[in-house]
């Protein structure tokens, strides 16, 4: 299990690629974001995004899955209090292959819960052409290793 001590400021890693199919985009949009620009080719062509695009919440949820598969799944994570900022910079398209860069702007011990640390992650999702689709900054609460070492 990765603990707070494993997360130092700087570049943490690059994860993916994750292929996103048209069927996945349509299924997510039908359940959570049934706007015409996410469901209907003709309406999507007339929209600002000029073609069928995935829901931004789908892209965010895919980033969560890529974070999980990349390292959260083997991290002593206690959850996250929120997201400071998320920017959707370009549309998610059917057939995109996503890669995720993870940087750590800051990592500090929690004042209120000193057995944990707060690691701030910056996630950047790009498509195969290298275009940035989404950027997110979010703190995650991670256990410190001292618990195990001190036999608490």
């Amino acid at each position, binding site marked *: 299990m990765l603990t707070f001590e494993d997360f130092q400021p700087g570049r943490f890693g690059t994860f993916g690629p994750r292929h996103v199919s048209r069927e996945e985009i349509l299924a997510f949009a039908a*359940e959570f974001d049934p706007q015409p620009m996410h469901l209907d080719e003709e309406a999507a062509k007339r929209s600002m995004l000029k073609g069928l695009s995935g829901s931004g919440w789908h892209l965010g949820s895919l980033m969560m*899955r890529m974070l999980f598969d990349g390292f959260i*799944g083997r991290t002593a994570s206690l959850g996250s209090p*929120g997201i400071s900022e998320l920017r959707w910079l370009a549309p998610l398209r059917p057939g995109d292959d996503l890669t995720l860069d993870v940087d750590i702007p800051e990592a500090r011990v929690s004042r209120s819960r000193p057995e944990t640390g707060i690691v701030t992650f910056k996630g950047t999702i790009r498509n195969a052409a290298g275009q940035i689709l989404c950027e997110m900054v979010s703190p995650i609460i991670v256990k410190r290793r001292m618990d195990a070492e001190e036999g608490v």
Partner: protein
Amino acid sequence: MRFFEDIEVGSRRELGSFTFTAELIKKFAAQFDPQRFHLDEEAGRNSLFGGLAASGWHVGSVCMKLLVEDGKREAEEQAARGEEVATLGPSPGFRDLRWIKPVLAGDVISFASEIASRRSSESRPEWGILEARHTGTNQRGELVFSVLAIAFVPRRNRVA
């Protein structure tokens, strides 16, 4: 939905409520956020959440779902009054999203949205930019979710 010019800062809409059943929580988590406290009751009870907890991405996605459903209701009301209906544009993002309290299996969350600010788009004169504070409140009246969302909204006098 309404056009940019017709939307007042401070105006609020109740978006409706959603029951986060254990089945729905696990289904979303299995696909997008398979951390143990989102998949297993026992692991949830032993976590900071104190029970099987919905992924924060699930809570945000349900808020989006209710926003879209409310937009359809508003469009029907407008059409019934003979008004022209605007179509919501895409969102460039959001800020200050807070998962304030866990959403546990069986919780009923009521969502609402209040317009926080509006301004013209410098780069796209046919669009305005709205900021709205969306919130989620559980059946005990506790605020559990809050986000300041940004969206493009068409202006009434846009050039086709």
